[in-house]
């Protein structure tokens, strides 16, 4: 099984490389502007402040990892990038999340369009109770994308490194897939609407190590085309896959006995893991805390 799937991956990489060369011609290295510029961002749930005063930027075609102990606001932070926090009624955002220079929280910005451009993969694989094909076609259909749907589905499943495993049963239920396959389907589904950014919220936490490895390989492959932000509990994972790393932690508010997350350190991943500048980061990455 492992051998067979391994072969599949390398084939897909070949496919992708052809594709990616054409793309990287368009944006050359020097013109690389940040995809996201986060400025003094705070998020509240009602009167409770979940994260405060975060400033960071996310570069194009890189993997940025958010790490930190539970409750430090990593997921909240991630959901600011595609306005998923809007779905929580009491959530309120202060500060600025600029996406290519446009503040996502500016009036007039349509969260639906934001989520089309900035895709999301969730902690628990959540395929629709429909066929594999319909799962992938869902996004393009609601976005009324033009083009041959079969082609879009095939391309997305290939990018999601799932095509060879499912090409003969596209019409069967997505719920029949294994957990790892379901998660790759969710990634393929997110890629189908042709987003620029993929947000991943602990995408491997429900998966076994082999399935996790496959997802990590997949991330490595698609980062030539997409900007990826991943929240993870797993420091080894962050060290393995990410280019940039942001460490969050919590501070206890004495008065209300609540915890607010804040950004401690944001740096290149190698730097962060080999020579962190903050003691708290060091304690966390060396496993002394958290």
């Amino acid at each position, binding site marked *: 099984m492992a051998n067979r799937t391994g072969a599949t991956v390398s084939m897909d990489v070949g496919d992708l490389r052809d594709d990616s060369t054409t*793309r990287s011609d*368009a*944006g050359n290295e020097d*013109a*690389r*502007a940040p*995809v996201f510029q986060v400025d003094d961002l705070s998020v509240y749930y009602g009167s409770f402040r979940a994260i405060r005063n975060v400033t960071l930027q996310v570069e*194009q075609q890189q993997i940025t990892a958010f790490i930190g102990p539970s409750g430090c606001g990593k997921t909240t932070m991630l959901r600011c990038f595609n306005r998923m926090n809007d779905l929580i009624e009491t959530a309120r955002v202060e500060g600025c999340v600029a*996406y*290519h*220079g*446009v503040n*996502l929280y*500016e009036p*007039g*910005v*349509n969260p*639906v*369009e*934001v989520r*089309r*451009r900035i895709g999301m993969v969730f902690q628990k694989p959540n395929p629709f109770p429909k066929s594999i094909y319909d799962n992938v076609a869902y996004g393009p259909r*609601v*976005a*009324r*994308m*033009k*083009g041959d749907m079969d082609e879009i589905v095939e391309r997305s499943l290939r990018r999601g490194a799932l095509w060879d495993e499912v090409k003969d049963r596209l019409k069967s239920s997505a719920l029949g897939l294994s957990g790892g396959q379901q998660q790759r389907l969710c990634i393929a589904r997110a890629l189908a*609407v*042709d987003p*620029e950014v993929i947000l991943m919220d602990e995408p491997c936490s429900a998966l076994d190590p082999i399935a996790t490895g496959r997802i990590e390989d997949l991330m490595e492959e698609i980062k030539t085309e997409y900007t990826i932000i991943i929240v993870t509990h797993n420091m080894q994972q962050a060290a393995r896959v990410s280019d940039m790393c942001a460490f969050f932690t919590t501070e206890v508010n004495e008065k209300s006995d609540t915890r607010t997350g804040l950004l401690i350190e944001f740096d290149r991943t190698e730097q962060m893991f080999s020579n962190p500048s903050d003691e708290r980061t060091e304690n966390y990455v060396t496993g002394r805390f958290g």
Partner: protein
Amino acid sequence: MAQASIDRAGSTLTIDDLRGDRGRTRKEAVARGLLSAAGGFSILISVLIVYSLVRETWTFVTQVDWSLVWGDGWFPRRAMYDIKTLVVGSLIVTVVGIAVAGPIGVGAAIYLSEYASRRVRRFVKPTIEILAGVPSVVVGFFALTFISPELIQRFREGTPQQTMFAAGIGVGVLIIPLVASISEDAMRSVPRSLREASYGMGAKKATTVTKVVLPAAVSGLVAAFIVAVSRAIGETMVVFIAAGKSGGALFETNPFEPGLTMTAAMASIASGTDSVVGEALTFQSLFFVGMLLFVITLSLNMVADRFVRRVRHKY
């Protein structure tokens, strides 16, 4: 089209790129508007109910000779509006109904939630739900043609066929499923850990049920009781068919006599409204009784709702 609009170089994005598809945005707004209108429609219904009741009730209340509202009997066509005749009639039917449905409904619920095997439950619960679907006219006929002659008259000779007692039993039969279902919900919401704690201390099943589960579910049981009372007071057809009096009744406290309830009195005025004869306020008295019924049942339901919430809150 969508692909082309993505700017991977990154510098030229403007807010117009993030406004989204006009058509879809408009569709969303239309959907939201229509669905909110549907959601708000229930308020309109409440307003219409109150409006329907208030006008004629006001006419009745302001014009009636109040000495006639507390007299010997309810004969609206002869301007006798003794309200206590109807209220006591409703009360008798309700008490009999609850006496039947309370123990039977709660008992069935306890058995289903605490004793019955999965297989029994799978078969019995749907059957009780089917019982809940029996229309009240059917139960009324059953009370008149079976409960009364085969049960009541057999045990108590000389009883008329149409009595408040027969109607009460019919109402009881009608509300058994309601009591059973609310009580079962209440008992199911008692956490397993409480039962296990009791067994863990060596308590018997009967002790666990009576001393642990029932007290923990008491809010839900109270709610079931109140909802049942409200439903019994509001039940019309069983009483209209089986309790015997139409048109009017003298004040009567013996359940083994024919009688009239608030609901049955309304139905009998209405079934004669083609040619309303008699005193001028006959028609308005219907609304007056309706208002009284509405206020009583609404208050009961609101109290019951509070108890149901308490159950949800607790666990």
